[in-house]
């Protein structure tokens, strides 16, 4: 069995599972946020009316809560949703609630790894489609709807169809102008937005071994954009060190067997990757950044669980150091702990010297919610994950998805720019 099959077999008490088996898996961790939380609360209200007992959760210690989509409160309804969510965690004794503006806070997927909320070998579900992100730690991580999350909160388990696995092997070392974002955009361009529907996307090879943990998280994050159920990478010493730095060392890793089966294996040569951009209006609509160098921009956005981790900010700073931006540029670190590290490393000073707006962590403009949405006909280059019509604001705005290096180089010139071409 491969790693995903072994995790699901262990979690469902079976010796062996195969793709297309349907299992009930015990869940180790579950996450809700300020959008899915109120959705789950609505399901609870519905259940209450049927007479079902819902006074207690299966295990409040395994539940954690983030406030990230509409914070700082975008309007009265968003403010009310946070109040509702806070009452819910109080009523059910959930102690791990990352309150916005109280210590550590930020985007749920970023907190999942930054705070070591999820560990290798675990089954982790969340009320958000980018829950896949955390699979880079060697966990099975998948997004669910509100009824399913409510069921997990009350019963501690949920059904899964065991997915087939597509294996993406990266050979060699990424050149210094290419990032994980370029690889995942290339892959989505190759297989399409339903190319991994119902499947797991696993990443491996020498290129992945050499990649930082945060860069790996960019790959698993965007498996969602290929329709995947989950993304996963086998844990190695880098993962162990990363988690140990965050106080987590007690877990039971799972690795695939030597004769693990994969539905299909794809190979990529790191040396052949180049700065890549997904044009409007689909993440599969990819082309080389250099082919788009005539496209003028209104804005650069460096934010989200996909593109505002510490490594992303370091890449941006490398470009912006000693330069100024030509278009309005917004940098929103994905968690306040990452903001702090960026300050300590002097990155925030570089950003501000370049003329950039540096803001608090939020999903905000990535999902067109608030804090920097686009006007009609505006064109944005963004380190985020989706560029469907209206995704970041007006339905007639345009978003180009790119790596932090490309977004920063483009901020400097005001046009889509390959970092190699920056003078």
């Amino acid at each position, binding site marked *: 069995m491969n790693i995903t099959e072994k995790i699901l077999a262990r979690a469902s008490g079976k010796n062996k599972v195969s793709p297309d088996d349907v299992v*009930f898996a015990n869940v180790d961790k579950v996450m809700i946020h300020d959008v899915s939380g109120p959705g789950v609360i609505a399901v609870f209200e519905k259940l209450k009316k049927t007479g079902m007992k819902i006074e207690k959760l299966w295990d409040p210690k395994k539940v954690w809560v983030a406030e990230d989509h509409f914070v700082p409160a975008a309007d009265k309804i968003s403010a009310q949703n946070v109040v509702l969510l806070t009452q819910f965690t109080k009523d059910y004794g959930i102690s791990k609630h990352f309150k916005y503006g109280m210590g550590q806070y930020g985007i749920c997927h970023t907190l999942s790894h930054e705070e070591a909320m999820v560990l290798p070998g675990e089954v982790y579900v969340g009320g958000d489609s980018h829950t896949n992100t955390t699979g880079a730690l060697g966990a099975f991580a998948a997004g*669910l709807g509100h009824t399913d999350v409510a069921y997990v909160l009350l019963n501690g388990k949920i059904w899964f169809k065991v997915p087939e696995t597509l294996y993406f092997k990266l050979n060699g070392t990424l050149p210094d102008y290419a990032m994980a974002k370029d690889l995942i955009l290339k892959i989505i361009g190759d297989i399409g937005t339903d190319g991994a529907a119902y499947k797991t996307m696993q990443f491996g090879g020498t290129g992945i071994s050499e990649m930082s943990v945060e860069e790996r998280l960019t790959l698993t994050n965007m498996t969602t954009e290929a329709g995947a159920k989950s993304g996963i990478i086998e844990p190695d010493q880098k993962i162990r060190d990363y988690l140990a730095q965050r106080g987590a060392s007690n877990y039971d890793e799972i690795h695939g067997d030597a004769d693990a089966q994969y539905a299909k294996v794809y190979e990529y040569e790191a040396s052949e990757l180049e700065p890549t951009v997904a044009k409007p209006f689909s993440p599969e609509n990819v082309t080389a950044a250099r082919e788009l160098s005539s496209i003028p921009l209104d804005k650069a956005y460096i934010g989200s669980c996909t593109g505002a981790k510490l490594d992303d900010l370091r890449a941006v700073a490398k470009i912006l150091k000693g330069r100024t931006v030509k278009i309005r540029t917004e940098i929103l670190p994905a968690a306040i702990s990452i903001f702090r590290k960026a300050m300590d490393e002097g990155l925030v000073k570089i950003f501000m010297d370049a003329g950039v707006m540096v803001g608090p962590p939020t999903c905000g403009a990535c999902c067109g919610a608030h804090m920097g949405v686009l006007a009609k006909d505006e064109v944005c280059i963004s380190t985020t994950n989706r560029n469907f019509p209206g995704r970041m604001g007006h339905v007639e705005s345009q978003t180009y998805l790119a790596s932090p290096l490309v977004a920063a180089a483009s901020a400097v010139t005001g046009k889509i720019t390959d970092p190699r071409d920056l003078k």
Partner: protein
Amino acid sequence: MKGSAIKYERDNIDTDVILPGPYLKIHDYDELAKHAMEGIDKDFHKKVKPGDFIVAGRNFGCGSSREHAPIALSYSGIKAVVAISFARIFYRNAVDGAFLLPIEVEEDAYKDISEGDQLEIETSKNEIRNLTKNKTYKMKPFPELIGKIISAGGLFNYKP
């Protein structure tokens, strides 16, 4: 189960089309139903009758995890969506919330069914009979557990 087919000859019908974003704040299920399919078919609410089926192509329900999508269809009267394939979260939400049946068919069945055809779906035989055209199509059987959850009336009524 008998009803008329409402056919959309397209793939990747996403949740934004099934229930557009501006209505996500609404929690009244009957109110949601008034906006079902508004993204591609403004007349859907007028033409849909209780017991009708939607027939569509590949990857039905792709996009976000919003449960509002199957809820809006269900409260419009739709009992099943017959498609070549479904996006995973829509499929789960439809079954686990007991909102409607997601029924997978081969491409030839999808192509053969026309708007307004009278269909009879018999899940116990994995058959769809087209009463208008006097034809029978195979539906892909539900995996065992999915069939049990459907019979129980949703995940919360299912006893493992």
